[in-house]
């Protein structure tokens, strides 16, 4: 069955580069899934994200979003309506002086009628927990709050898919938690398809699928538990594993009979406590 996002032998080379950033990549993303993408700097993960709403189009191969070829310029608006993007730097995404105007910006551009915009903006701000800040100035918000406003701006377009490219890289731990739990809730309540690109291993443990990018290709594809269990392989790819897996791995090497797939802190503590009881 075809995915809602479909990559077919996609190659991409930036004009100024000698090497390709994507090298013959195949990928199918299922509607309603939460896919996390990890990879070291320069592995091609941002380039991958930018292909999902036609910011970039393949130099070879094709990308289909909801069946629409992203290279078809006459369908560009259609693709952008289906896929909302949130980027790393919240300051680069804010366009208005009042939070609710910022959230209304995209639906206004899509020509949505005013009454409907009002309804969508209010609903979106409530969904990210920023409704009470709707009349505030965005530049006075914290990083985590700004990212939630950016997410509200995306939801107000009512896309089927939300792609977040390192949305927490510039945030403090509290901001990171706010943004991740907002996205997890959206997915649960609205059934949105989520693609979450990150450096933080710990943010991937809630995903139903984890992709590891390396040198423009998908090096690993599986559930977080499957992939993180392969500690040596992760190190080879220049990545780390969550603290829980790293600890369990080292304890197993000492001869303790522990599972490697207890990714969450509570699950990890439970497994250790059971063994020591």
């Amino acid at each position: 069955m075809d995915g809602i996002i479909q990559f077919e032998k996609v190659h991409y080379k930036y004009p100024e580069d000698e090497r390709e950033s994507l090298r013959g990549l195949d990928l199918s993303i299922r509607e309603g899934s939460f896919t996390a993408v990890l990879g070291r700097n320069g592995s091609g993960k941002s380039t991958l994200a930018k292909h999902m709403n036609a910011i970039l189009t393949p130099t070879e191969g094709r990308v289909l979003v909801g069946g629409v070829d992203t290279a078809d310029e006459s369908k560009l608006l259609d693709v952008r309506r289906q896929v909302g993007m949130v980027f790393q730097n919240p300051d680069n995404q804010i366009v208005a002086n009042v939070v609710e105007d910022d959230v209304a910006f995209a639906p206004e551009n899509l020509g949505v009628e005013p009454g409907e915009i009002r309804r969508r903006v209010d609903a979106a701000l409530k969904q990210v927990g920023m409704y009470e800040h709707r009349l505030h100035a965005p530049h006075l918000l914290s990083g985590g709050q700004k990212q939630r406003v950016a997410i509200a701006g995306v939801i107000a377009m009512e896309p089927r898919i939300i792609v977040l490219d390192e949305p927490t890289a510039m945030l403090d731990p509290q901001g990171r938690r706010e943004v991740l739990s907002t996205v997890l809730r959206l997915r649960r309540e609205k059934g949105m398809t989520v693609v979450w690109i990150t450096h933080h291993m710990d943010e991937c443990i809630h995903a139903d699928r984890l992709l590891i990018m390396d040198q423009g290709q998908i090096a690993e594809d599986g559930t977080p538990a499957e992939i993180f269990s392969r500690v040596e392989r992760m190190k080879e790819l220049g990545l780390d594993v969550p603290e829980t897996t790293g600890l369990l791995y080292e304890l197993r090497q000492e001869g303790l009979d522990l599972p490697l797939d207890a990714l969450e802190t509570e699950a990890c503590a439970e497994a250790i406590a059971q063994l020591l009881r």
Partner: protein
Amino acid sequence: MAEIRTEALSHVYSAGTPFERTAIEAVSLAIPQGQFVGVIGHTGSGKSTFIQHLNALLLPSGGRVLSGGEDINRDKKSRRDIKWKVGLVFQYPEYQLFEETVYADIAFGPKNMELSPEEVDQRVREAAGFVGVESLFERSPLELSGGQKRRIAIAGVIAMRPEVLVLDEPTAGLDPEGCGQIMENIKNYREQTGATVVIVSHDMDGAAALTERLLVFNEGRLAMDGTPEEIFSRPEELLAMGLAVPRPTAIALALKERGLELDGPVYTRPQLKAAILRAWRAREGRAGTC
């Protein structure tokens, strides 16, 4: 330079306007030469305001900042001199690279110090050596990776040979490999020059493993000041301030909730592993005697 000392240091932004906000209040502390200090606190806690006082980038609203016993803000000259002694690396310093080559960018600071060309050259090479970017001298900073740019920006500050190196979130946004390299570079600089290092970080695990002392800011005040061992043995207080604890500490807390109290401080993985192994061996020993 001997030590840096703050005496009842306070800072109020937009004083006398409706936007008046006290960022830090009555901060008194001394940092001896050569110490490796971590500064933690959530956004808005005052930690960035605090470090900007260490090289007179901000003027105190109250209190003083002393370097080697002298007020760094006593006159124009002292405010200028302290900029060479205390090097400040901002968040995302790579956005401040602007020269055409890596070499020229690193040379910018020492050139402004009116040193001889030979001295500038020596310093550029030395600073590049600390962060491992000598092979990139002729490249344009714009064509390099994020981690490389970050290291070049840090080299630009190191080239001024600061006695105190202050870094605001030096690893933010980098992948694990990039983070590791930068922390290693900073550690080497300190070990080889005896410089004081003050590092602002959200990364509790890194702060726990590397620093000798932690300053915890909360609502503009210095809320805690101690060794990582002292600070992280009070995880409940940190959590109450909305801060994270190192991940090994979080796992230890979850074990404690399950009735398994580990002995000794736990804020790094080797400590956690050792404590669990001790508990396991004690249990195996018990089982053996049954």
